[in-house]
């Protein structure tokens, strides 16, 4: 680790490096509640990360530990090659956009944004252009003299971002920063945050419980539950290849069924045998099978791999959401552009690669190795 540390400081802008590392972080609160269990993660410079999980999963605690507001019970926080576990938050090159913005109500927009620079005792002649640039970045030109109470929620959000980025941090932390906005504004801010991150080229770590938000903005997502990192990877990886039933359920909608591996590339579930793309497991190993609702096609009963009866159907604008029960009494959720009749017998069709097989208690390393082995084989076939 020490070698990495010296290497890191010599590292130029273009070289990929871990700006933040959490090593074996545990957090136990005074009342005995265990918020984090052995968290290890690496954050690379210049990327957009999301910490995604339900409330109480520990995602905000991780953010507070990185910012320095909370001390870990055990473990170390490394920043830019230095151990900063005991460093005061005021001295970290990290700034935070708080959940409810935490703007200073007695100061106007300019004074809020200038707060950090004034603390650093910069002369006003330097503060003014910096504040102006930051307000321009969040598209609030001309708002400098407004009172905070005169701003809408979206504008306050922008001020909070400007107040953080004006200090030119190496890492920006965002704690559920969009959750107070209405849906339309939230979408708009998602695009904008991503644009700001690209422009500044710094690392963003975004905490959210909204999977859609995490999927649409991030380069990489850490899915958390129960104080543990469940899975990390790109949004596509996590959506297409969830590591366990929690991730499958939490991210997107899914059909989850218990199953059994018959042999490589053959799995049994819903009382049928199917060809699949997974291998490397023991024969007869109990597994869980995920099929995403949008991967199910409605076909004529004789053409389907499974036969089911449609129970309910909702029209959701761009697709139908259909619930159907197959001959083995399993319920299936189907997203399809074609509707069907209620109580109609339908066939369900899916390709072998639409079946995603999950082993029980598989570590991320084993999981990644297993998936990689398929890819290797696929390229061999070609």
């Amino acid at each position: 680790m020490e070698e990495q540390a010296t290497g890191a400081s010599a590292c130029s802008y273009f070289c990929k490096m871990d700006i933040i590392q959490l090593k074996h972080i545990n957090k136990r609160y005074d009342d005995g509640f265990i918020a984090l269990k052995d968290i290890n993660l690496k954050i690379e410079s210049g990327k957009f990360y999301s910490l995604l999980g339900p409330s109480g999963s520990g995602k905000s605690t991780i953010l507070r530990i990185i910012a320095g507001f909370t001390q870990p019970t055990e473990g170390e926080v490394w920043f830019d090659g230095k151990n900063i576990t005991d460093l005061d938050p005021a001295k970290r090159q990290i700034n935070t956009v708080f959940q409810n913005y935490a703007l200073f109500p007695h100061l106007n927009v300019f004074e809020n944004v200038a707060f950090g620079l004034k603390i650093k005792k910069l002369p006003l002649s330097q503060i003014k252009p910096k504040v102006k640039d930051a307000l321009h970045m969040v598209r609030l030109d001309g708002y400098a003299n407004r009172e905070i109470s005169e701003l809408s929620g979206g504008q306050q959000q922008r001020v909070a971002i400007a107040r953080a980025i004006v200090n030119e941090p190496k890492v920006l932390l965002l704690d559920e920063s969009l959750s107070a906005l209405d849906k339309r504004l939230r979408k708009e801010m998602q695009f904008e945050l991503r644009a700001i991150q690209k422009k500044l080229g710094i690392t963003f770590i975004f905490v959210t419980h909204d999977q859609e938000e995490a999927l649409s903005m991030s380069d990489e997502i850490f899915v958390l539950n129960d104080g543990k990192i469940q899975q990390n990877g790109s949004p596509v990886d996590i959506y297409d290849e969830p590591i366990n039933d929690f991730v499958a359920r939490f991210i997107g909608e899914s059909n989850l069924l218990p199953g059994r591996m018959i042999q490589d590339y053959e799995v049994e579930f819903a009382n049928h045998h199917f060809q699949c793309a997974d291998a490397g497991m023991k024969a007869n190993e109990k597994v869980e099978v995920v099929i995403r609702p949008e991967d199910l096609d409605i076909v004529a009963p004789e053409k389907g791999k499974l036969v089911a009866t449609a129970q309910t159907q909702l029209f959701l604008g761009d697709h139908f959401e259909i619930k159907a029960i197959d001959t083995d009494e399993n319920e299936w959720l189907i997203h399809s552009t074609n509707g069907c009749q209620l109580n109609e017998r339908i066939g369900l069709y899916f390709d072998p690669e639409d079946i995603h097989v999950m082993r029980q208690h598989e570590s991320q390393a084993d999981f990644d190795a297993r998936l990689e082995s398929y890819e290797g084989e696929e390229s061999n076939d070609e």
Partner: protein
Amino acid sequence: MKKRQVLAKTYLLLVLIILYIPIFYLIYFSFSSGKDMNQFKSFTWAHYQALFQDNRLLAIFLETILLALLSSLIATVIGTMGALAISMVRKKSQQKVLLSLNNVLMVSPDVIIGASFLIFFTALGIGLNFGSVLLSHIAFSIPIVVLMVLPRLNEFDYALVDAARDLGASSYQVFTKVMLPALIPGIATGLFMALTYSLDDFAVTFFVTGNGFSTLSVEIYSRARQGIDLEVNALSTVMFLFVLLLVGIYYFITARKNKKTRKGLGGLIK
């Protein structure tokens, strides 16, 4: 409906008149050239002239104001720190005990507080003079300040402290740049209340004041006991006007404060 409104207004007016008549009666006779309050003779400023030539009284007047300013300022500093300490107590039950101890001092009769101070000072051998009065005024003003500042602290958003630390502020800067501005309205109200409590206190002061020092309330009381002197009326009038001025200032400050909070609420709703 209208009849009831008229009745209600008449009642209110009657109550106000009954409350204020004694004061205006007193003020009225301060301009009488007579010797007593039995009959208004003719208009005169003579009592006021006598008042302003009475060096002893002027000294007492100035000392009373000095006492009020000093005691309220010191009580505000101590009371604000006390409120901070109470709000930092983690256990809710302990916080309640502390707050109750604070409130008991507020509601206990002045006579008891005055008597206990007298016993306390004599037991410790502290002389009864300006110092003893100042100490007791500070002591009975602190709970008021605590009570005025604490609600502000309870509604204070501690995320602002994190935000300030995040932006590089030291603990001292967090306090002066973020917490203090949020507490100022409460502190100002506390200061004002302490000021008026000190100005119009009679019972406690009566116990702890010695030969050399007296406040206006005690002086007026002892003069009134010696027999009716219209100079007392003039003195009371001056004091009444002074308090009126203070109330005016207080309303001016709170009106400005309210305007700001209303603006804040508007922003929240939006």
